[in-house]
């Protein structure tokens, strides 16, 4: 019996014990909000505190999430038994149905089942992947790397224009050969395609990763494994705005919502290559910026308070953004020429070692 299956059975037995004793069954779920997230400055990691919330079956406000929690737990046990991997979306659909004699569904939207899956993860202290649940696939990679996955040998430098889609579960892949000086991680697919077409990875001897937005678990774990196994520096390249910078911080320290697995996903050695608000002046991007929205400014104000953004360099950038009410996207560099990013911006930054911590 797998460890995960054992944990799921124990969960069931605890509830059953309450039922047998005719008590109101409850589950202790660790709290995942900011109030229970601790930034460990030594480890450079966000970790979860020890606050828990109790969820009761016989409480009108708790009853439905309690039921949903048990449904997901039971499905996960099935996945273990049948050795099926499936997606979050599949879980939602596999469990979604209308309850008898009502017009109420077990789940109405996927955004109802997703957080309960995280509840289950943190409650059992297991990785989602161990539950056989794949996150949505997002992220691509290219570079002089050969890997083995599910018995296939895959050369990341020989996959045509598309690159390799990073799967959600990279635990089982192995690296055959890695020939690179650093890893360049970028938020945007468009930048990735530009650099790929310009063969930046060949010229610079690096690995290019795009997270396509907020980094999913697969790419994060992949970056962490590559950088720690092969001691490769990681440079993160995002828009100059609070959201882009937060993407960087998640890659480096972990996220508030997944603080319970920061140690497996975080990459504390990562550095920030750009864009910064200071870059706007430095690289003459003034004509290609965008007005920051209310939400951007609000987010920046929140981030000013996060322990892991207390470094003066970051405080300066955040304040600059708030003050100038401006942001810049990676594509702003195209305003200076379609190859400005490839030929000027990135080489300059790397040469100068002009990174933010």
């Amino acid at each position: 019996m797998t460890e995960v299956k054992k944990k799921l059975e124990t969960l069931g037995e605890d509830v059953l014990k309450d039922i047998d004793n005719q008590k109101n069954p409850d589950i202790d779920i660790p709290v995942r909000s900011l109030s229970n997230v601790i930034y460990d400055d030594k480890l450079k990691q966000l970790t979860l505190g020890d606050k828990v919330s109790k969820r009761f079956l016989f409480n009108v406000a708790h009853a439905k999430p309690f039921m949903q929690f048990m449904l997901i737990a039971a499905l996960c046990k099935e996945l273990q038994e049948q050795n099926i991997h499936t997606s979050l979306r599949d879980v939602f659909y596999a469990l979604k149905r209308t309850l008898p004699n009502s017009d109420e569904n077990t789940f109405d939207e996927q955004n109802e089942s997703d957080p309960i899956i995280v509840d289950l993860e943190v409650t059992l202290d297991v990785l989602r992947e161990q539950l056989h649940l794949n996150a949505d696939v997002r992220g691509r990679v290219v570079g002089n790397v050969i890997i083995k996955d599910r018995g296939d040998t895959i050369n990341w430098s020989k996959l045509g224009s598309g690159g390799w889609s990073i799967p959600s579960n990279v635990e089982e892949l192995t690296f055959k050969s890695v020939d690179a000086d650093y890893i360049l991680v970028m938020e945007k697919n468009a930048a990735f395609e530009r650099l790929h077409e310009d063969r930046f990875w060949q010229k610079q001897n690096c690995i290019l990763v795009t997270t396509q937005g907020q980094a999913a678990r697969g790419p994060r774990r992949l970056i962490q494994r590559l950088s720690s196994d092969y001691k490769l520096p990681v440079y993160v390249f995002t828009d100059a705005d609070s959201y882009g910078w937060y993407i960087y911080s998640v890659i480096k320290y972990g996220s508030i919502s997944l603080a319970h697995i920061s140690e497996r996903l975080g990459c504390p050695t990562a550095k920030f290559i750009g864009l910064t608000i200071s870059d706007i002046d430095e690289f003459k991007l003034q004509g290609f910026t965008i007005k920051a929205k209310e939400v951007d400014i609000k987010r920046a104000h929140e981030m000013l308070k996060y322990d892991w953004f207390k470094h003066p360099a970051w405080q300066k950038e955040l304040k600059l953004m708030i003050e100038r009410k401006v942001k810049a996207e990676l594509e702003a560099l195209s305003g200076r020429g379609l190859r400005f990013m490839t030929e000027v911006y990135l080489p300059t930054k790397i040469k100068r070692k002009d990174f933010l911590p």
Partner: protein
Amino acid sequence: MVEEIGKTAEEMGKEQRQIAVSEFFEKNRHLLGYDNPTKALLTVVKELVDNSLDAAEEARILPRIWVEVKPNGPDRFRVMIKDNGPGLVDKQIPLALGKLLYGSKFFRLRQSRGQQGIGGSGAILYSQLTTGKPTTLISSTGNKKTSHYEMMIDVKKNEPEIISHQILEDGREWHGLKVEMEIEGRYIESRQGIPEYIKQVAIGNPFAEIVFEGPNGKMEFPRAVNELPPIPKEIMPHPHGVELGILRRMMKSTKSRTIASFMTNDFSRIGSGTANEICKLAGIDPKISPGRLEVEDTEKLFKAMQKVKLVRPPTDCLSPLGEEMMVKGLKKELYAEFFAAVTRPPEVYRGNPFQIECAIAFGGQLPADQPIKVVRLSNRVPLIYQEGDCAITKAISGTDWKRYGLQQSGRSIPVGPAVIMVHIVSVWVPFLSESKQAVAAYPDIMKEIKLSLQELGRNLQHHVAGKRKMEMQQRRKEIFDRYLPEVANAVGKLTNKPAEPILNKLRSIIKKNTEVIVDDRSKEEVGNAG
């Protein structure tokens, strides 16, 4: 241009002359409710039904009223109203119905439907104006003789004009009055139509039996109560309700010899002690003759009368329906699940006693998604028009019904399955116009209506809350019923045990422990692990 040379004062003076009140109202018929054919038809029915009810009540007869409205050519109707009231003495018939501002009720401080002596004669005026035809009046006082009149009104003189008259010694037992006239009108079945009006009369007068035969068939409204409300008594004016001008006039025409006896005789609630107190306060000799008082002294006396503390006016001049009768009235005409009524104690406005009562029918077959229906009654007479201007409507809109369980957006008529009836009872209901369709929103009256509605609202809220609590408990039970099989199944799968026994155990937790399921709806509790 000759006309451009202005008239002199002398020329103008010669043109002046007296106008008869009938002429005035003929020209200003909208003041009496004859604005348009639709409203005119309703007004005729209303005035005559009011008269019939008043007469029967005063004679302590349980009213039975026949109303017929039959089309007679385009926009022409024959209207007939017949009652079982005391009837009219033969020689009184022309005066009572053929002369405007003639009647008995104007001078009395007592609650009644009509007050101004305009209702019946106004209808006849309208009939002859629009059809040129006389009105037929048939009456008997139960003396086995029946008076038959055909009559019009001489508008220039405000006098009856008798076209024909005969007294039949027909031996009939019937007593009452039958009025039949032809008028220009238009018939509608909507909210402001005659059927709705008569339905409201039936609600507000549950001791009356009404049969209505309209263009679209016959409707019968049976009696729900077999006794009349007590007859209201006449009262003397209350000092706090008298105005300075009226006081002066009373002092001139009184038969009392001294100020003190004037006050005790001609007012209610003034004893000789109080009379002396007032005189002392005003610095006036109580023995002086009322006719001798100077203007300044009258004013002092007036002020003293206002200042002195007095018992409130007697309220047996008022005859509210009472809570029981209101509920019976609503019950017999509406299918609802909950009824409540509130009769407030009498209050005083400008020295005139008045009383507010209200009732509600809620739920059942009443439509839930529309503004509630408001039945406005004034001395048992339904008010149909000018709803928006009426103190009753304003008080309902101005009450916060959300707290009592109805929907309401801002200050508007609430929405929900309810009919609210508000009844204002007074010796003198202040209307906005002579068509008597909207109660003026004086603060004293508004306040009383609002208080009564709030009390009614609390009753309603009690009912709704009880219902809601039961629904909530039911809903909770349903929720758990719905979720438990899922939980049992899941726990069964996790523990490799059959689901059925688990489900049974879960259900027994509910059964044993109902308070569990009405548990608070709190958020998940947060504590520290271990």
